[in-house]
């Protein structure tokens, strides 16, 4: 176990970008967990007397049209945005990897059907598809999660299928068969652990997209509804004021959104280095 920790420390010290991404990620997770404790104000408390104040010592990120503290709203929104992203990515990871493994390993009809499914999803503009799903299923947080999971499914199917396809013929799979493993055990015990590194990179990239997707749906009025604090809604609410000079209302939530996506994208490569045992020295 200590070897693993040493390795993580080694990868991080060798790669400052990854270290920065990890630090940022940790900060986001802390905000998501501790949100209500660290937020300086009640995110829902309106105070028209203090509406539209620019950033100041009292309100670091300023206040919005209803006089709510933008910093507090951003902090509280972290839990919701991350929650949606994690749940959606977890769903597409589980189902996408399972489908992709079956397609790549068994080939034949499995492969044809599963690949068609992935192609069908990919044929739509993904955001429009997500809009359609939420519109059809109803406007709720759960449905945003399902929609985001569905549009991310093809990426996992493809990663798992490609990797399983290559490894299906690897010597260690033949050896596992000789050691008495049936198909399912080969998939779960031999191939799955080996596709974890590329899948984790996909997870990290997807987290960024998932957050952006959830925010995007809220931005156009689907999914999360006001007054719930959510980054997408906050950007949408602030967008109208940019022309009139109240830039901070949209700027800070947009900035945080960008940082979150950026952070996950950078995390991908670092994760691969940590998970792949061949890079451990």
């Amino acid at each position, binding site marked *: 176990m200590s070897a693993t920790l040493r390795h993580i420390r080694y990868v991080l010290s060798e790669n400052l970008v990854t270290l920065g991404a990890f630090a940022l990620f940790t900060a986001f997770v802390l905000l998501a967990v501790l949100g209500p404790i660290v937020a300086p104000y009640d995110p829902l408390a309106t105070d028209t007397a203090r509406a539209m104040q620019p950033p100041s010592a009292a309100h670091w990120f300023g206040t919005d049209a209803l006089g709510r503290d933008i910093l507090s709203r951003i902090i509280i929104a972290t839990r919701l945005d991350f929650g949606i992203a994690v749940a959606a990515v977890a769903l597409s990871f589980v189902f996408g990897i399972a489908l992709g493994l079956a397609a790549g390993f068994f080939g034949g009809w499995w492969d044809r059907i599963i690949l068609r499914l992935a192609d069908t999803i990919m044929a739509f503009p993904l955001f429009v598809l997500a809009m359609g799903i939420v519109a059809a299923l109803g406007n709720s947080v759960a449905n945003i999660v399902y929609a985001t999971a569905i549009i991310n499914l093809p990426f996992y199917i493809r990663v798992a299928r490609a990797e399983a396809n290559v490894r299906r013929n690897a010597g260690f799979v033949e*050896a596992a068969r*000789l*050691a008495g493993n049936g198909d399912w055990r080969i998939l779960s015990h031999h191939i799955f652990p080996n596709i974890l590194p590329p899948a984790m990179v996909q997870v990290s990239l997807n987290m960024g997209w998932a957050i952006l997707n959830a925010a995007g749906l809220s931005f156009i009025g689907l999914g999360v509804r006001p007054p719930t604090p959510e980054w997408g809604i906050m950007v949408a609410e602030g967008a109208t004021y940019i022309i009139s000079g109240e830039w901070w209302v949209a700027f800070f939530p947009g900035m945080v959104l960008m940082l979150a996506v950026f952070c996950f994208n950078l995390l991908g490569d670092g994760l691969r280095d940590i998970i792949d045992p061949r890079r451990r020295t």
Partner: protein
Amino acid sequence: MSGVLLETVGLSRRFAVGRRAAGGKRASMLHAVDDVNLRVHAGESVGLVGESGCGKSTLVRLVSRLLDPSEGAIVFRERDIGAVPAAQFAAHPERGKIQMVFQDPTDSLNPRYSAADTIAEPMRLLRGARGDLAIAVRALADAVGLAPELLARFPHQLSGGQKARVGIARALASEPDLLILDEPTSALDVSVQAIILQLLARLRRERGLAYLFVSHDLNVVRLLCDRVVVMYLGRVVESGPAAEVFAHPRHPYTRALVSAIPGGTANLAGGRIRLSGEVRSPIDPDPAVCRFYGRCMQGAPRCGAEMPLLREPVAGHAVACHFDR
């Protein structure tokens, strides 16, 4: 010699190649293994030699039940195991009795399994061992000369020779009767090769194993095998006692093979033989033409009209050539 452990009868494997023609014509078939009768006695070491593409890997995968035959039977310990689909053979009672050591020690080890996990898996799955197998794994590691402190390591932390030992220990973990060795030392350095070969010889002596040893290195086959089977384009062209085949090869292909051994030319009458011409295609081959015709220095019109069958001019030494009398 004790009883027959493994026997293949008319074993063939064909693979469909290319696209089916639009007219509904049958797809072209690659004849990888064609009508092979192979016999391995208990405790015997049989070498299987031939060039790449001659079907020895396919044959080995048929016998080890990783691949299903197109035709023919595989009789192992008096049971026909050829009819059991390869996908279901993992649960077959004979699974543990036929094991294999792979060519590439790196590729054949799961990069995420420690040496101990790799060796323990067949014990659990094939012998129903439960609980802590540390003692059994350690004993097996000891038998193949793998230091116990290496058992916790992953493949990338082991040297080539150490990985080869892990592969051998895994194959022995289910206590097989027949061990198939698919070029077990071709990926190793000479300095390690010698000790692995000696280990294999010792294990066979101690455990009464039968070996089916595939190799392209005839010097190695000569060292390890009692009998040798020479394959050419899917068919057996010669088989016999190893010393006999190397000293007096009867088939022209075997003669060329023996004369190509580096440093082996001197003791062969007739000097070096170099093959010219092209290898015949294994796709839909003409059943009436000798597969070696065209490359053979003795080729005659008869070879293009009649496939020579395997005969036994001398007891125990079979050859498939019209010119052998």
